[in-house]
């Protein structure tokens, strides 16, 4: 084989392998969705939404778990997003050449990838041990800790995309800096910032590890934030690992529900981000 033919052959081989790698990656995605649909669809009934988690061997639903997940996600987002947005604002608007900002930026990126189970231990020590019992507040705070780095990062990125001339125009009119940020920069970046919040919501809606030691679980309907509260991820964890068929089926139903919700959030967030690039 001539050297040229060999080089061509190597090239085709490697490019073929890279195509195979891409197919390999996508196959898992399809495999997981197919499994979820096949096992979960039969559990998606009206009962799933109106009944509470049953004892083994009887029929039931996930009403308390769905409610718990919604409430804790909502509280976590309401607590975490403003903190993240303000911190991200500092990094983008005040901290371009500030040493503290560089450190915050660095640490925030590490928090972004840090294991979520560690957050669970932290909140356990901080809240559960102090209060003496597991609670939905602790669960929501653990989730908020995960929201913050995501929102900080996207807020900073989105604010940096706002053209400086827009701010300068506002400054030239004598507008004070806080007003420029709130009335001009935020308005220009609002879609991007919303995307960040949606992605954070998507991230925490499936988080299980930080809830295990904080919100724990509750077999009954409870709206008391000071007590343990059922939530979808932990219920899925317990029910899937149980030997009871009814429970396993509910776990699959819950898994399908969470995944669909997260997909919708992700796709909405992406569309929102795209909408912005079209407007430009």
């Amino acid at each position: 084989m001539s050297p040229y033919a060999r080089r061509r052959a190597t090239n085709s081989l490697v490019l073929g392998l890279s195509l195979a790698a891409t197919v390999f990656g996508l196959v898992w995605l399809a495999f997981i969705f197919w499994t979820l649909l096949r096992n979960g669809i039969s559990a998606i009934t009206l009962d799933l939404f109106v009944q509470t988690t049953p004892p083994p061997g009887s029929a039931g639903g996930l009403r308390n778990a769905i409610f718990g997940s919604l409430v804790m996600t909502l509280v976590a987002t309401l607590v975490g997003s403003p903190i993240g947005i303000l911190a991200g604002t500092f990094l983008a608007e005040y901290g371009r050449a500030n040493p503290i900002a560089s450190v915050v930026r660095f640490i925030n990126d590490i928090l972004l990838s840090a294991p979520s189970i560690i957050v669970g231990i932290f909140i356990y020590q901080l809240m559960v041990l102090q209060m003496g019992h597991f609670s939905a507040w602790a669960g929501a705070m653990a989730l908020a800790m995960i929201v913050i780095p995501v929102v900080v990062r996207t807020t900073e990125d989105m604010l940096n995309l706002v053209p400086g001339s827009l701010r300068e125009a506002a400054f030239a009119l004598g507008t004070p800096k806080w007003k420029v940020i709130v009335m001009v920069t935020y308005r220009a970046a609002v879609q991007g910032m919303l995307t960040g919040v949606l992605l954070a919501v998507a991230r925490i809606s499936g988080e299980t590890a930080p809830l295990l030691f904080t919100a724990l679980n509750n077999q009954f309907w409870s709206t008391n934030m000071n007590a343990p509260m059922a939530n979808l991820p932990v219920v899925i964890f317990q029910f899937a690992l149980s030997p009871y068929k009814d429970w396993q089926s509910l776990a699959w139903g819950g898994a399908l529900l969470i995944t669909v919700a997260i997909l919708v959030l992700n796709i909405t967030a992406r569309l929102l981000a795209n909408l912005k690039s079209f407007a430009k």
Partner: protein
Amino acid sequence: MADIALKGADSGARQHTLDVVFRGATWFFAVFVLLILTGVIVSLVAGALPALQHFGWGFITSSDWNPVTEKFGALPAIYGTLVTSGIAMLIGIPVAFGIAIFITELCPPWLKRPIGTLIELLAAIPSIIYGIWGLFVFAPVLQSTLQPLLINTLGNLPWIGSLFGGPPLGIGIMTAGLILGIMVLPFITSVMRDVFETVPTVLKESAYGIGATTWEVVWNIVLPTTRVGVIGGIMLGLGRALGETMAVTFVIGNAHRIQSSLMAPGTTISATLANEFTEAVGDLYLSSLVALGLVLSVITLLVLTAAKLMLLRLQQQAGR
């Protein structure tokens, strides 16, 4: 006239106060981010102290884990964490590299975005979904196909044979590692893609101009230019794999033993925490679990810091 001037001055002062307040608030919450990490480390160290004082270095060198006799050694969990992440990297790195090449060099432009998005969706799927899928679908498939194959082929080899010995259980270290390999794909791919895109087109075109093939351009131009960033991306994926909890907890088998076979059940730090934390009775037991968390944090923080430093270095290079 005087009235108006006075009003203006007043409003100026008020605006100035608001400016200071707003800046102060953003500064406060930025520093709050630092406090989170500090708080996490302080609380872990404080919680782990009783166990570390009790066991000393024996905590990380002993493989004894017995809640009844209150003997706690972290070695099996550390071993499981490192080995599962190692397997994940063996799968994740070449596949992510292939996908990144495909997206940046091969893919027609209209397909770039959909494929990139689909690969990123792998990262959006929660860990617990990988876990339930791994336990009920993936593990049985491995048990009936890949594992018997490995036992009958590689298992007979000298030296490495013992790695593939024992019965095909389906669950175990290897299954956990393979699932982690799929889970880290999107993270490594997206960093590799981003750094590959930073290579100046002129560099690539000059290589194509002297007759290089696509692969030769990737191997001799793109990869050397972005080496630091690629390693950074790999470390980022490694950081994810080390701390991954729920998916591993489902399929690892939860055995505090170090066995020679990769198909045997084992445990990882995060799986031990997920399984035992809420059931831990006794201060020493709980403190040992927190100490495990501290070990995990130290390992992942080191890996993630290295990853971040490498990516920063590449950014500075690109800026020059």
